[in-house]
């Protein structure tokens, strides 16, 4: 049960319009100790962000209505400390240009689909720790 501990106590907001993908990510994260909050669109995600105070956000980019870029722009305009919350982009747009666009837009990390489940878990852990150090300092 070593794996389980990796995301122990971390609350993750999962923003994904495709229900199957969202379910999979939730299942993956929860089976490694995280608590997840699902959102199937950007408006809902912003609401959950304020309401449920997650430690971290994992979001898709290509979504109807408002996409992942709209979401990150909205997050970075929030009041501190919400503004600084680590956000990971998960997307099937995987060219270097897409990656650059994502990082410039304000995402902390970018994972191109398909990715290894461990990659997502370790990224979440790392960002969570870094952020905690930052806020503590």
């Amino acid at each position, binding site marked *: 049960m070593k794996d389980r501990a990796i995301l122990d106590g971390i609350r993750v907001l999962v923003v994904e319009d495709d229900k199957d993908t969202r*379910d999979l990510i939730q299942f*993956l994260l929860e089976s490694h100790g995280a608590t997840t909050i699902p959102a199937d*669109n950007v408006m809902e995600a912003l609401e959950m962000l304020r309401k449920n105070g997650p430690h971290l956000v994992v979001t898709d980019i290509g979504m109807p209505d408002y996409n992942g870029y709209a979401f990150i722009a909205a997050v970075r305009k929030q009041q501190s400390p919400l503004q600084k919350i680590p956000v990971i982009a998960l997307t*099937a747009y995987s060219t270097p240009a897409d990656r650059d666009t994502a990082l410039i837009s304000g995402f902390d990390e970018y994972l191109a689909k398909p990715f290894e489940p461990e990659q997502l878990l370790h990224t979440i852990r790392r960002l969570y720790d870094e952020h905690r150090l930052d806020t503590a300092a």
Partner: protein
Amino acid sequence: MTATPTGQMYWLSGAFISAVLVLLVAVPLVISYQTTSTLIALNEQADPADELASEIQTALSHEFSAIIGFQASGEEKYTGFYQQQTQIITAAVAQLDRLAPTLGPAVQTAVKEIRIAVDQWHEHVRENRLLEAQLPEVQFRQVLFDNENIYEQAQQATGKLNEAVTTWRSQQRARVQNLTQLTTTLSIVFAFLAVPAVILVVDILRRLGVTSAYLESRAKEEEALRQVAHSLTGALTLDDVLNRITETAALAGDAEAVYIETINLKENEITCVASYGSGVPPIGAKSAYEGSIVQQVVASREPQIVPDLEVHRERKSLFGELARRSEKCAAMLVPLVANDEVLGALLLVRRHPKNFTPAEFPRVRILADVASVAMQRAFTLERLSQFRAEEHFIAEAAPILASSLDYQATLNAVVRLAVPQIADWSAVYLVENGKIQLAQAAHSDPAKMALVRRLQENYLPLPEHDTAVVRVIRTGKPELFSEVSDELLRQNTHDEAHLEVLRRLNVRSSMVVPLSAGGETFGALSLVSEQPGRYRHEDLGFAEDIARHAALAIQNARLYASADHAIRVRDDAIRARDEILRVVSHDLRNPVHNIQMTAKVLAARSVPEEKRRSMVQIISRAAERMNRLIDDLLAVARVREGEKISIDLQPLNPFDIIREACEIFSIQARMKSIDLHCKPPGVVPTVLADSHRILQVLSNLLDNAIKFTPEGGRITVTCEPYEGGRVRFAVRDTGRGIEQENLGKIFDLFWQAKSTAHMGAGLGLGIARAVVEQHGGQIWAESQPGAGTTFFFTLPQATRKQEPLNRELAS
């Protein structure tokens, strides 16, 4: 000058005066020289000769004494003394020898005799050894007396020399006296000569005075002409020059009337261009050049006098007109020729009894020369200024035309640059789709632009009409209308209203030149002036030049526009292809990712049974989705290649299709808490369709609807009979709607790929349209922003059995 009698007189007078002056000065000089030289000869030669003669005489007597002394005493001192005297004699004779030639022949002979006598004497003394030994007294006496003759001869010779010198001296004196007399005589003669010389000089001076007065008057005349020339120089415009010429000619030529005719050889006509006084033809009046009196004058290059105009009354020319108008008048015609270029003629008219005489020719000719030069210069300047304007135009136009690749901008530049310098208005006509269009026009007066626009809208040249523009485009040859008459306007118009428009545009002079490139005439450029006669034959070349530049620019802009369009289309296609690939790869990655992740999760740990089942379903759905995407991709590829999507037409019950579609999407809708309602129709006719393809259309529409409808929304699918024997399908959602301006574009495959990529909308709508249209149906959307969207598509009814079941085969 030397040829004239007056000139010869001057020459002779001059020679005479010179001769007198020379004689007056030279003769006394010569005489005085002669006198002086004679006196010098007397002083320097005659006197020494006399002295030398006496010296010799003295020395001879000393020698004689020395001989007697030696014989008497026998002393040696007498020998020395004798020798001393001999030396003196020798030296004196030598000196006389040198002097003798200048003293005349008598003296020379005398000197010669002296030398012989003296030598004989000295010889005699030596022979008898009179100075060597004392002779016995008797012997001595004998010798002495024997030789006395010889001694005497020597003495006499010197005497003779003295005489000769004296004679010469007296001769010279007489000569000097003669010369003095001559001088006196000459002085008297010269005094008489001087009188006519002085008279001559005075005459010459008088004549010179007359000449200078003449020259002065000539200078004054020339000055007057220079002033004429100057006043003509001041006048730069042709009209100004012509007016000044007529005024000056009237004053200087003492004429009642003056006019100028210019010659146009090309048109074989003479034109009255300037006039002064009464009875002259009006300015602008023309008549034929061939056979005219002006032609005669110009051919001879000499002025001609017509003593009585009456004779020419019957001439059908400008001159005849003058003759009819001017009774009892004389005329003089002077050719106007500058640098061998025949410009025309100057005509002066005098009322009888005054008349013209050939004596006036030189003066009139000078006036004509000055006038011709001024006219030629004015002509040249006029051409030059026009040329400069043209040059300027080309210089301005060329870069603008060359730089502009934009079609409209080019046309605009073409018409605008000709206005107002070259034309009051200008228009470009282009052949487009077999019709002649007035593509662009410009007018110097913005108020008249409205009239030009009326031409553009209502009176385009019709190919069946024989108008200038049509002809020029057809033949490719330029046309010039130097003077546009009302009749000519009428010929070029459709109706009275059209004519009225052209009248109001004040079309007075016009050129129409072809716009050609690569041997093909694709249009015409018309230049119009409100000034009658503005364009002449020689302007056509320039207009064609403009047209060449313009045609090239228009052609370039056309080519560029089409090339640009092609490039844009190609670039768009490439971009669209890239976007489609991007969208498809994205859409494929999502299900692939789901399958992969599910597999890993299932492999990594034990999963509760319920969870495991749902994961298997995820895999199944992902695979289904991938399958749909591959179908889409193939369809897109076909559409993009311009191919038809293969459809297998079968008679179908529309409701069966929508029910099947709803079943497929029921789970997806339920997962998003969307109420997917499949509404059964009343009676609906059978349609002729490919069930698989129509399902693809409905799937794409439903996929979209679910994606864009928030949770708790509602989607309704219906089908119903529709106008034109068709069945209309509808998918209505309660999503946020689509902006009005995008409704028409959403079915465009490329637009969709570009604009909705990040929304994950895929290519569904583009494919749906392709499929529906392949069935002979239509697809469209209606939307109220915020209140949802309805997608409609129609399919044809399958009414008759005999209708072909498979369109693909039929086509």
